[in-house]
């Protein structure tokens, strides 16, 4: 079998004495949504920062499209086709929505006209067409999340890392954005999403990795992972699986 688009091999990261990520491995392939879940503080965002080049791992390798990209700076990874969104949204606050997306679009388009055309296309794809000329700092939380997504998409990525794009959204906003993400996947983009909204993970992801205390403790289809007692214990504490199993067995 060919190597998957993204291959993270036994990556570790240490912040001083704290081992935030401990020999974690995962992979992601084109046209698939891969989820990375885990309790708070498990090291998910740190792992994302390593994949996207914002942090250098203390140990381990990150391979992308068959090449070793460990420790490459973020801007070079973006050129290779890796885009990310930030858990805490990072809009260019002083600029309009259009100008925000334009920054991403210019990665592949040198001319202003071509880049602006990309902006229009991406904005309609994620549903921001109506607010293109609004200052980014006047947007609602949901629209800011969409803007994060739009900017990343404008770079025309092959691999998209989504860090909690659904967090902070209400159920109807989630219902609106889930088809957008699924649409990207059918277009061939490999998506890795960190997510706490389990309902969305269950319906979107094909493959799930569970990170707890820096280590991958389980992986598989959403159904397999949800039934895994190790995962239940990681979320709810030692012995929880047994108690739950006793209460209502599957």
């Amino acid at each position, binding site marked *: 079998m060919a190597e998957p688009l993204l291959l993270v091999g036994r990556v570790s990261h240490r912040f001083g004495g704290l081992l935030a990520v401990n020999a974690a491995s995962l992979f992601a392939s084109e046209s698939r949504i891969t989820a990375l879940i885990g309790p708070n503080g498990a090291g998910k965002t740190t792992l994302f920062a390593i994949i*996207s080049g*914002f942090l250098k791992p203390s140990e381990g390798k990150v391979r992308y499209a068959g090449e070793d990209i460990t420790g490459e*700076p*973020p*801007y*070079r990874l*973006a*050129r290779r086709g890796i*885009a*990310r969104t*930030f858990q805490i949204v*990072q*809009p*260019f*606050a*002083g*600029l309009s929505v259009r*100008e925000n997306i*334009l*920054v*991403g679009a*210019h*990665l592949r*388009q*040198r001319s*202003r006209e071509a*880049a602006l055309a990309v902006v229009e296309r991406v904005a309609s794809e994620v549903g921001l067409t109506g607010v293109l000329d609004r200052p980014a700092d006047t947007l609602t939380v949901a629209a800011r999340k969409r803007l994060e997504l739009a*900017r*990343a998409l*404008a*770079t025309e990525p092959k691999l998209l890392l989504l860090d909690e794009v659904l967090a902070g959204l209400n159920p109807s906003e989630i219902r609106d954005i889930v088809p957008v993400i699924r649409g990207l996947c059918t277009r061939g983009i490999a998506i890795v999403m960190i997510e706490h909204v389990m309902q969305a993970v269950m319906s979107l992801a094909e493959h799930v990795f569970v990170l707890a205390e820096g280590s991958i403790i389980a992986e598989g289809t959403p159904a397999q992972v949800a039934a895994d007692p190790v995962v239940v214990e990681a979320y709810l504490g030692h012995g929880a699986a047994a108690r739950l199993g006793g209460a209502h067995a599957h």
Partner: protein
Amino acid sequence: MKAFAPIVLVVALFAAVPLVVHSNVILNFLVVALMIALAGQGWNVLGGYGGQYSFGHAAFFGTGAYVTAILQVRYGVNAWVGFATGIAAGALVGAVIGALTFRSGLRGSYFALVTLAFAEVLRISASVAPITGAGVGTLIKLDLRAQAFQFQSRATFYWISLALVALSLLIAKLIERSRFGVWLVAVRENEDAAQALGVDVATVKSAAMVISGAITAAAGCFYAQYFLFVDSGIAYGTWISIEVLLTPIIGGVGTVFGPLFGAMVVKALGEGAQLVTGDAPGLDLVVYGAVLILVIAFMPRGLIGGLAQARQRLMRRPAVEVHHG
């Protein structure tokens, strides 16, 4: 082309001034203000669009002035060649300072302090080095011929300074509309987000510093030709670092016309204060300080930003009511 119409209009208006005004005092005032506007546009490229606040743009101004003067006086180089070399030297100093500061990741106040240190090191070196004439300075021989870049008439100098300003306005506008400009503004707004979108932050900042250095150096070259005298306190003095950052901040930081507008206002206020109080030393600086505080307190985007906001508010009002109603 529509985007460049305001530049053409403003430059045409300025160009007509000597046809109406013949007072040497007023023309002299305008030449100096235009020179500061030019130097300020240099600062604006890096500080306004790129968000990198330099406190040491005297490093570029002084390099331009000294290179122009020294090449003529000591090496007999033609003044125009000296002028061009001065601009190139400013770009080179920009490349060196950019490489040293941005590659090592200096940001914000650390960057500002290091640029100030560079300018001071250059000032102190120039005040002792034999080649600069040390404490005595360098005097360019009076030679009122066009080949020597010297002119009998103030109006000619005025038009030359205006042409340089026009070029700097054009450069700013071109940057605004280019990919490089989009990236530069992205760096100003949020470096991490810019990097994630493929912007090579250090390279973009360094390139801005080179352009910035060249433009501010051009003002220094012009200074040397206009006043025919350079010493370390003038060329590398903190006065120019301050005026160069004041004018865009007061006029409108990160806008094409901010430095020009700011230079006119700041210089007029400075002159006005001197007229009223006689030649009390340092009073112009007090006025600059007061204006700066007022602008930052009430119009953080400068006079141009403030005017634009006021206009928008007036034009938007009906639309907003409809929206809420």
